[in-house]
């Protein structure tokens, strides 16, 4: 294995220095170390002199795909470090016309999964990851790794499906009642790119301000269906949730059904294939006759 994390980090720093110095990129989005051991935080690297702040290790848990979107009118080019999940998020943004490809310079890194610094365990989202190699990049650091989920992504969904409708309702009511509506799941999601989110439109009546079970359900259920089959399965919503709600069980249900109804589909693996709900076939499944 030539991809030791240390060597990847070293190459990444060298490349970042070169790219910043020769003006290929205006800044680079990567990670830097946090205060505590294993803690990382996204980094906006502007100066080649600061390149030693840039790190790459097994704790780089944050997805970076959404950051370029907040600076889409930039004059120059934004450098982004992308792994499988980041690159799928970037593809999604490209497909949605959120940003132009020539505004981006993507440094790809095949990823073997990130770990939770506190437990030392590989994150669930990484165990369930299907695309570990970047699917879009300008240059690649390290060799490709084997793709494919290490665990059954749909196991939890299948388990919930085996319950009765009433049991399922109670399960989800318990979960939504704990939501604090901080909206971190929305804000971190690479698929959520609306300029104005329905959840910020209390005056229009789309989403009330009250933190009640009904409003929490409205928020959680509608938000997830808005993303629907466009979900790139990065699992960030679940990772960032401060009250630890298993939100991916909602996305996975939609994805599982979309597979069964419309065929296997991975959002963001390229920037042109239409999503299942973007198009239709004349001979789609018909159960509404």
């Amino acid at each position, binding site marked *: 294995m030539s991809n030791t994390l240390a060597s990847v980090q070293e190459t990444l720093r060298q490349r970042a220095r070169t790219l910043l110095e020769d003006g290929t990129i205006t800044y680079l989005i990567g990670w830097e170390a946090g205060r505590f051991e294993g803690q990382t935080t996204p980094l906006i690297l502007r100066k080649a002199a600061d390149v030693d702040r840039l790190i790459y290790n097994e704790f780089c848990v944050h997805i970076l795909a959404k950051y370029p979107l907040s600076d889409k009118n930039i004059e120059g080019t934004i450098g982004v470090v992308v792994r499988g999940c980041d690159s799928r998020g970037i593809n999604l943004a490209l497909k949605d016309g959120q940003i132009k490809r020539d505004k981006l310079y993507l440094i790809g890194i095949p990823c073997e999964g990130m770990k939770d610094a506190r437990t030392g365990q590989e994150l669930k989202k990484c165990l369930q990851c299907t695309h570990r190699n970047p699917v879009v990049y300008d240059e690649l650091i390290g060799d490709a790794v084997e793709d494919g989920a290490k665990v059954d992504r749909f196991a939890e*969904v299948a388990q*919930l*499906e085996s319950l009765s*409708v*009433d049991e*399922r*309702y*109670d*399960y*989800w*009511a*318990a979960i939504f*009642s*704990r939501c604090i509506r901080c909206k971190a799941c929305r804000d971190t999601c690479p698929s959520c790119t609306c300029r104005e989110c*329905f959840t910020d439109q209390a005056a229009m009546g*789309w989403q009330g301000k*009250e*933190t*009640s*079970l*009904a409003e*929490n*359900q*409205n928020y959680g*259920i*509608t938000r997830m*269906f808005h993303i*629907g*089959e466009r979900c790139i399965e990065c699992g960030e919503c679940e990772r960032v949730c401060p009250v630890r709600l298993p939100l991916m069980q*909602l996305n996975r*249900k*939609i994805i599982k*059904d*979309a597979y069964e*109804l*419309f065929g296997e589909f991975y959002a963001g693996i390229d920037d042109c294939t239409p999503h*299942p*709900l973007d198009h*239709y076939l*004349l001979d*789609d*499944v*018909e*159960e*509404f*006759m």
Partner: protein
Amino acid sequence: MSLEQAVEAPQKTAAEAAEVAEDWRPKILAFTCNWCTYAGADLAGLNRMNYPADVRLLRLPCSGRVNPQFVLHAFQKGCDGVLVCGCHPGDCHYSTGNYFTRRRMLLYRRYLEYLGIEPERFQIRWISGSEAGKFRDTVVDACEAVAKLGPNTKYREEGR
């Protein structure tokens, strides 16, 4: 909601069905497309067909106009059942609207079932402007099915 309420809330389970008043009738909201189903309903009326008055029709330009959130909102505001009706695939006034509806609703119906709403409460049907009988049958069947289930207690804003 205080944390206290948050934790108490799930203890009221869905199984605790509300006491059903004797004269209770289901409240069903039907989203009907202007060009087919609404015309079908009109024809049913012209033909003096009888169907339960439990259904309220909401006319939309196309079944594609049904934002999935409308369905959830209907349940939250107190409907016991929701029908989404449009033209048969191929007959859409706007050529393709209902093809998209079909895909969207295939997913949304499964999604809501996964979230605990009985499939009988949320149905989608294609009813053309000439299918007055099918419209009547759909409404009769839906009302019966929902009446059998009783009032909806799930996702209600009030009455929990």
